[in-house]
Structures are given as structure tokens and as C-alpha cells.
């Protein structure tokens, strides 16, 4: 079983990112479970989302306290909170950032990746500069970095699950996949 935690901010589509990923993974016969942080946070406030992936049915309905990997949708969170809380040794930290992985100071037991999902989103006109919608780009990068599923499944999941500008989102995901 793989357990991943997403960090983002209210209104950025963090939950959607994990949901798209779950969709894509399910397409390949995986059992998946995705869920948001159970809170009342407003736009702008830090939020979480989780995903579990397994080849067997997943019965554990408790929260994820020790993720295998974390994905940081909003780079400002790296300062604001401890994104590595409970992260297992050897875990990957995937950050949406224009900076290189080295820019971030994390303990050596983690592996850091960055992807400029914002830039990709803006390029494909997803959301606005002030509020870019980065979830599909993030999903593309995560699929690649964690080698979770085939790109085709992700593309299919986006086509089915993203009602607004699906093709632009597909392009963003592919670009992120390729750049990651």
C-alpha cells in the first residue's frame, strides 16, 4: 500500500488533484481511497488531502499519519507548516515551485522534487495568474515521479473528470509529466 499526503490551500483544488489521481489509478485496477482533510478551512487556509493505493481492497478507514510521500501544491506552505510531519524515511517530497529541489532544506532521509506546475497551468490558461489551477499539472508530475500509473490513464481520468477545459488540462498534465 502506498499512502500519499497532499498539502495545499483552500480553493486551490488540492482535493481534486488527489481525486484525479485516484481515478487514474483505479483505471488500472488498483484499489484506491482518497479523502480530504476533514475541516472547515476557508479559501487561503492550509488544507490537506490523502490518497491510499493498493492492489487489494482497502479496509483501513483511519487517517494517514505516516505517508510514504507528500506533495506540496503551494510552496508557501513549506515555511508555514511542517510538511514532513510523519513522513516515512525515504519518502518523496514533490513541491510545486519554480525553484530547484536544492532550494528547499529538508533532512537527507527525504527525496525532494520540484515542478513548476503554476507556470504550466498559467501557460495553458488554467485559472488566473493570481489563482492558477494547478491540480492537473501536479497530478501529471506525481504520476511520473512516483511511477504510479500510465500517463494514458491519467489523461483519460482528466477527460472524464474535469468538466472545464478538459483538453487544456490534459495538455498541462502531459507537459508536467514530461518535465517532471
Amino acid at each position, binding site marked *: 500500500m502506498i499512502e500519499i499526503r497532499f498539502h495545499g490551500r483552500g480553493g486551490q483544488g488540492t482535493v481534486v488533484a488527489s481525486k484525479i489521481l485516484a481515478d487514474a489509478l483505479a483505471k488500472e485496477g488498483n484499489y484506491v481511497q482518497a479523502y480530504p482533510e*476533514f475541516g472547515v478551512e476557508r479559501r487561503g487556509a492550509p488544507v490537506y488531502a490523502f490518497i491510499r493505493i493498493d492492489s487489494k481492497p482497502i*479496509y483501513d478507514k483511519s487517517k494517514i499519519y505516516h505517508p510514504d510521500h507528500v506533495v506540496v501544491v503551494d510552496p508557501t506552505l513549506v515555511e508555514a507548516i511542517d510538511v514532513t510531519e510523519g513522513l516515512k524515511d525515504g519518502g518523496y517530497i514533490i513541491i510545486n515551485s519554480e525553484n530547484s529541489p536544492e532550494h528547499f532544506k529538508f533532512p537527507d532521509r527525504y527525496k525532494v522534487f520540484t515542478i513548476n506546475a503554476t507556470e504550466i497551468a498559467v501557460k495553458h490558461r488554467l485559472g488566473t495568474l493570481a489563482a492558477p489551477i494547478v491540480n492537473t499539472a501536479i497530478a501529471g508530475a506525481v504520476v511520473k515521479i512516483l511511477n504510479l500509473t500510465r500517463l494514458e490513464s491519467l489523461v483519460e481520468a482528466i477527460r472524464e473528470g474535469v468538466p472545464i477545459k478538459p483538453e487544456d488540462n490534459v495538455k498541462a498534465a502531459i507537459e508536467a509529466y514530461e518535465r517532471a
Partner: protein
Amino acid sequence: MKKVIMGNHALSYGAMLSRAQVIAAYPITPQTQVVELLSEMCADGTLNAKFIKVESEHSAMAACLGASLAGARTFTATSAQGLALMHEMLHWAAGGRMPVVMGNINRAMAPGWSIWADQNDSLSERDTGWIQFYCASNQEVLDTVIQAYKVSEKLMIPSMIVLDAFTLSHTYEVVEIPDQSLVDQYLPPFNPPWRLTPDDPHAFGGLTSPDHYMELRYKLQKDMEKVPALVEETGKEYEKMFGRYLGQVEEYLCDDAEFIFVTSGTAGSTARVAVDELRQRGIKAGNLRIRLFRPFPFEKVRSILSRVPRVAVLDRNISYGHHGIFYQEVKSAMYGQPSQPLIFGFIAGLGGRDITRDSFREIADYALSRDRVEEEIVWIGVKK
């Protein structure tokens, strides 16, 4: 068709596949997605239903009841405060024999405001005459909606389908969405034995004197007593058509168990993992997840628990001034039975506190290390 959907949407799909005809609902966290999706289904024609956007839950249930008495299949969903506001109308639905099907997302009762999982809302409706199903997966949620209509309409008793806040309502899982045509085969249109119509005018619910009231309530109870068998029967029929079985309880490794968790809702799912862990430690554990809570599955519970020396009942609820409600009811059901297992009662997870494999480990350690019931309420996870 397989889809990754949240528990709330499993309710919406269930209602859609059951061809609910009148929906009246009011938003409340964490139920909102149920009605949002149903609104969309109504708006885009996927579902041919009237959606009444009422101004409160009391009216939501009242509108469902009116529609039901007019002969329509009705659906609603709510949670916690909303369910509580319907309380009077819940009695009404049962006493009036109106087979509404309702989803309730288990959420803690205020104050303080809490939107998190806790069974006190639905369990404090245990005396209102509703059938209650507690679900542990999104698939079960969807399947149960369809089954509930079948059972409810046969006996003219309403059903409540209960799912934990967030842990189920907001959790995405892979769900097989059955074919509409198959569902139509399983669930024929609603055709009640009486209805409001000028063609055959009756007054429903008039003043009922002490000469008559008790007989009517006797009939309700007698029909309630038919539910367990009907759940088995309709569950088996469902299995034949859809490949998934829906019974009164879910047994996991109970056959040879020497120690059984009695659970419900999503905790009953996590319990399976805990059972596996215990088995690895060499303890013959099992899990009895109660799916049908009202009517209480006396026979099932008795026959399974009679086989074990030790039982741990987990309650995500408490009847203040008494015990956990499942604990209380299981003990009551086991009173006077030939076999008298040690039954321990545990309260965990109130107001959304997580129930984890660790919780079950703690419970097992407690129950396995004692030969008598010292405390009747063992609190799991309270910061003392």
C-alpha cells in the same frame, strides 16, 4: 460501470438508480454533495424527479411524507442537526407508514459545533420506528439505497442509511455502478397499498383514540419484526443479480473466533485490518459488523456471540447516563441466553476522533487481559 466516487455521491447514485421521484432536502455539512449531485441530475435530466428546495429539514421530511402519501418514491439526506430537526417527522414517517429512504451522514451533535463523525445523531433516533442501516464502504452505500427501497416499500416502513462523516461521506472509493435496467428489474415502481387520491378519498392520520392506537402500533412492530428475514431475502436476490451480498451483519472471521469485535460503520471496516493483525499475533479474533441496527438483528447477534467467550463492543456514541448504545443493546439481546460471554464496552471516536488500528489494539489488549467487566464504559483515546 466502475467509478471513483465519494460516499455522498454513492447515495446520490443510489437514489438515481432507484428512480426517486420526489426529493426534498436541505444542505448541511457533510451531506451537501448528496443534494448537489442530485440537483444536477434533476437539472440535466439524468433523473426525472421533482426536487423541492425546502427551507429547513423539518420541511424536507414533511414534503417527502406528503409526496410519499401521494404515491411517489421519495428521497432525502441530512446529518446531525438536520436529522434532529426532523425528529418529530421521523416518528411521523414510521407511524404513518411512509417508506421514505433517507441518507444520514453521522456527525456529532452541537454544541460545540462539530461536523465530524459520531453516531449520536442517528442512534438517538433509534426509537422512532425507522429501519437503520450502517454502511462501511461506498459500494455498500449505493447498494443499500436500492435494497432499502425494496424493503421499505414492501413493509411500508421508512429506512435510514447511515454513513460516517468524512471517513465515508467524503472518501473516494471505487464503486461499481449497476446498470439501470438491472436495477429496474430488481426494484419495481412504487405502488403503495393506499394513497391520497380523489378517486378513492380517505382521511389519513385522523384522531386515533385509545381504542385503536395500540393495535396500529402493534402492527408496526409486527412488520418491523419481518425486516431481518426480508433483508436476508432481498440481499440474496441482490447478490444473484449484482454479485454483492447485503445482509443484516458482516461477519469477518467469526467462525472460529475466540474474541469478537462488535462494530458498525467505517470502524467496522478498519476492524477487519485489526483482526488480521491480531490473527498474526495468534489471537483468534473476529469482527461482527452490525449493518442492520433497527430492527435489531437479534438472531444473528445471538448465534454469533454465543459461540465466543469474549466480546468487545465498540461505540462511536454514548447514551449519556447509560452506556454506549450498541453495548447496551447487545447486552440486552444476550441477557438470558444460554451462553453468556464476557462483554466489554468501549467508547471511541466521538466528535470525529479517529478510530485507528491502534484503537482496536488497545481494546483487544484491555479485553483480553481481564476476566471480568470492571468498568462498563472504557474510554478509548480520551486525554485523561
